């Protein structure tokens, strides 16, 4: 930019030429005397004029040079001469510095930064700025020895991508607070993934007069590398004893194919599965793993890649959260000789479609309504009363206590139900189980269909119906009869097209009650014949029974925040997060928008983080995984042209780390240029004056 500005040096010449072209015309009597005078002074005048032009041109050149803040360097200009030197060293501690050359790259980077610090002298100040800072301590300029000890020494590689924009912003900010000479070094492997994200405008107030010296470390050639780019669960339910599927997508970064790559699945430290795969260049391959868990609770695992000479992030972590299988009691209030006509026929098959007791997370058990007096609900996680007419008071009392303790109760109605009996048994007492008193049975007019209307897909029990196809399936359901609900006291999850409640939730103690105002079979509606019936019933029962169906959590990307949300009652509670290096940090849940929420942004290292709730009672996962961004495994370097475009007006120089051994000094020429400029201007002023004497 400043070299281009040197073109302004022609301005005096242009002005001179323009002045020559612009002449005034004057009729004058004493031209003879003017001519004599002109002849006498012409030689001296012309000489002075050219000298003046040269001096003015020089003044502009000196001014431009002064603005460019030139330095005189010998070697690579490590040591400062003249004014004290403020040095900022940006050290790339992104994952690519670790995975390239099996960790040697980062060691080389620290050595290079150490050499720069060692070259600084008395009065100089330095700061080490990490591209991926860990902790909240802000870097500051300090004695170079102190910077080497306190900042550079403990610096470690993180799992995130390098943020050069933020690091340079910090660096320029520190240098902006300092006078005298300034130096900005960047020690990096020039990994494309980090440099690609550099945005000089986003740096903010950068100083183009401070040249950036980039010291490159690591092998210049990108070794073949691969990584797991994504993990996906193939399981509907994650529970002990079930077959669980996990799909790992693998990406390779190499000029050619990577053959015989071993992808290994490890869970809780035990290798569970291994597959061989050949990765084609610029393509992804998917590997399917299958495994079973032998115990409930939280588990952690990773998919690792193994190959000769392979670089990149070769381990991708995940966590598994299982639940016990759910025993569901189905009370059939309208059994028929033909099973298909029985009240619970569709429901029991919806909860365990394959009838596979070994592998189903929901284990429905059907009894007739007459047997309710002999059943203890506590042996189940959920109870479904399907069109049950008689509700003995003792059974109702047991049901109430069951729900109070956290059990789930689903009430589906039908022609066996008398509203008065239900209201008497379940509504007209101190702790009613109905969300409101049942009204009369309603029949849909023959000439007008009543269908499913509003569905609260934001409700945890109905999230699956955010899928448009499933939702359309529900909306196509025709309902011929249902019970009106005189006043719905709970939360309505589904409504009919005429606005009447279809599914209403009521909380009772620690448990949940769902009232379904139509039949669970196809007597009053055709829901059992629709696609949405199975997921609806599974979701309602699972939710009512107190939880999800278990999950595989493929984790978050390093450098991003982990967030938690809980009931507002948990506001003020503290979580303890333990990172893979066993460093513990506290997170406090703060009240926000009717919830208690908290976040943790110290996810700098890849691995499994443990979350401990000291007081207990919080329904949050105790483990989560943090993985590097997949592109950190792409070890290709940024090209010189691209780097030039990134830096724009800021001059930069790329040096090999070995060049630092050349040492050398740097001298700020600004003061000298100021003196020369002042002398030039004084000379110009004197010469200009002389020209008119």
């Amino acid at each position, binding site marked *: 930019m400043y070299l281009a500005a040197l073109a302004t040096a022609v301005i005096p010449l242009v002005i001179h030429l323009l002045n020559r072209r612009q002449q005034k015309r004057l009729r004058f009597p004493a031209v003879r005397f003017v001519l004599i005078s002109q002849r006498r*002074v012409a030689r001296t005048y012309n000489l002075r004029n050219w000298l003046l032009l040269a001096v003015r041109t020089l003044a502009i050149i000196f001014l431009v040079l002064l603005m460019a803040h030139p330095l005189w360097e010998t070697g690579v200009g490590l040591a400062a001469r003249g004014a004290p030197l403020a040095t900022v060293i940006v050290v790339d501690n992104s994952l690519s510095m670790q995975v390239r050359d099996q960790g040697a790259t980062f060691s080389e980077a620290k050595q290079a930064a150490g050499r720069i610090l060692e070259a600084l002298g008395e009065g100089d100040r330095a700061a080490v700025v990490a591209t991926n800072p860990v902790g909240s301590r802000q870097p500051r300029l300090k004695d170079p020895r102190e910077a080497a000890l306190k900042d550079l020494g403990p610096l470690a590689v993180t799992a995130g991508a390098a943020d050069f924009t933020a690091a340079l912003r910090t660096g320029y900010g520190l240098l902006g607070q300092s006078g005298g000479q300034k130096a900005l070094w960047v020690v990096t492997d020039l990994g494309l993934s980090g440099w690609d994200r550099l945005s000089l405008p986003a740096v903010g107030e950068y100083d183009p007069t401070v040249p950036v010296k980039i010291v490159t470390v690591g092998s210049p050639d990108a070794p073949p590398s691969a990584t797991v780019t994504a993990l996906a669960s193939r399981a509907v339910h994650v529970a002990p004893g079930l077959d669980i599927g996990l799909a790992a997508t693998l990406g390779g970064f190499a000029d050619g194919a990577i053959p015989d790559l071993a992808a290994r699945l490890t869970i809780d430290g035990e290798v569970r599965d291994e597959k061989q795969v050949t990765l084609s260049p610029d393509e992804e391959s998917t590997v399917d793993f299958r495994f079973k868990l032998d115990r409930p609770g939280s588990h952690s695992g990773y998919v690792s890649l193994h190959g000769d000479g392979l670089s990149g992030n070769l381990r991708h972590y995940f966590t598994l959260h299982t639940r016990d299988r759910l025993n569901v009691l189905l009370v059939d209030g309208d059994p028929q000789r033909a099973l298909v006509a029985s009240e619970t026929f569709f429901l029991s098959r919806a909860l365990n479609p394959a009838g596979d007791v070994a592998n189903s997370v929901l284990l429905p058990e059907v009894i007739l309504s007459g047997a309710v007096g002999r059943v203890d609900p506590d042996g189940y996680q959920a109870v479904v009363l399907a069109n049950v007419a008689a509700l003995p008071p003792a059974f109702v009392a047991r049901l109430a206590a069951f729900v109070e303790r956290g059990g789930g109760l689903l009430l589906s109605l039908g022609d066996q139900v008398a509203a008065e009996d239900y209201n008497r048994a379940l509504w007209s007492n101190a702790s009613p189980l109905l969300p409101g008193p049942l009204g009369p049975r309603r029949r849909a007019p023959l000439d007008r269909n009543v269908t499913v209307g509003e569905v609260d897909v934001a409700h945890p029990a109905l999230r699956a119906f955010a899928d448009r196809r499933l939702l359309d399936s529900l909306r196509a359901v025709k309902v011929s009869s249902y019970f009106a609900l005189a006043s719905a006291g709970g939360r309505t999850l589904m409504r009919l097209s005429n606005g009447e409640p279809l599914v209403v939730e009521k909380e009772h103690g620690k448990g949940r009650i769902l009232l379904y105002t139509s039949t669970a079979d196809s007597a009053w509606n055709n829901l059992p014949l629709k696609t949405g019936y199975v997921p609806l019933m599974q979701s309602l029962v699972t939710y009512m029974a107190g939880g999800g169906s278990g999950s595989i959590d493929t984790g978050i990307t390093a450098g991003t925040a982990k967030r938690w949300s809980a009931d507002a009652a948990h506001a003020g509670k503290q979580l303890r997060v333990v990172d893979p290096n066993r460093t513990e940090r506290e997170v406090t849940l703060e009240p926000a928008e009717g919830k208690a929420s908290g976040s943790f942004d110290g996810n700098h290292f890849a691995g499994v983080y443990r979350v401990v709730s000291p007081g207990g009672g919080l329904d949050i996962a105790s483990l989560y995984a943090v993985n590097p961004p997949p592109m950190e495994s792409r070890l290709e370097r940024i090209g010189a042209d691209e780097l030039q475009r990134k830096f724009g007006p800021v001059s930069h120089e790329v040096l090999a780390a070995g060049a630092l051994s050349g040492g050398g000094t740097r001298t700020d020429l600004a003061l000298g240029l100021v003196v020369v400029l002042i002398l030039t201007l004084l000379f110009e002023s004197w010469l200009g004056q002389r020209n008119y004497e």
Partner: protein
Amino acid sequence: MATPEQSYFDPAVLARLSNLHLKARWVVEGVMAGLHRSRAKGFSVEFEQHREYAPGDEIRRIDWKALGKLDRYFIKEFEDESNLKTHLLLDVSGSMDYASGEVTKFQYACILVASLAYLILRQQDAAGLTTFSDRIDSQLPPKATRGYMVELLQRLEAETTGGDTDVGRILREVAGGIRRRGLVVLVSDLLDDAESVLQGLRLFRYRGNDVLVFHVLDETELTLPFSGNTRFEDIEDPRLRVTADPKAIQAEYRRVMENHIDTLRSGCHEYAIDYQLVSTATPLDQALVSYLSWRK
């Protein structure tokens, strides 16, 4: 702010008056009024003859001694001390038609010549007028009649500028035509070779004439106060032109001009010629006073 007296002789103010006679009278009466106040006036005259008193004559002019001797009233009549012939030489060459302000050198010179003529004729001396450029344009012989003033002024008012300056040759030519000793008043910008001018002036002196030179220049001719790249074109000779930065040559120009003036001044001084450098900004009374100083 100019005082009333300053504006009285201010060339710019005078130039605005259309009547040259009025201008001349204004200047001369103003000068003479000033001289009365200073009591530095009066010209010596000589007794010429007696004549018998007639009603209407002033009582103070009666010769009381003659009355005592002859018992008759006689009036003393005087004759001027000298019947001075003044030759007014006015340069009307093209270079005189230049003004940096309101008044050209020619306008200034005309007012000066008219004032001198008015003054001379008022003193009952004879005044003649010769106008010239590179040749003699017109000539009016010196006469002392009061009515001659009108003729002189008409001639002046009819004059226009033009032609080249060749003062030296013209002076030699005019000097050859003057037979009786008198006063020669030259009004010119003298933008000619100084030596040639001096040669011409010396001829007048050789012939016993007194010579008074009014060297009229515009202020910008003296100082060259211009700026910016300028193409100077000669008023008289369009072929003579030069492009220069006035600021750059100003100092040298002033030296050249001063040298020219010094040559003229010292040359005049050597031959007892009264030399007066007047710029067109000089109030006219100063020029007239220099004449009166000589006349005393």
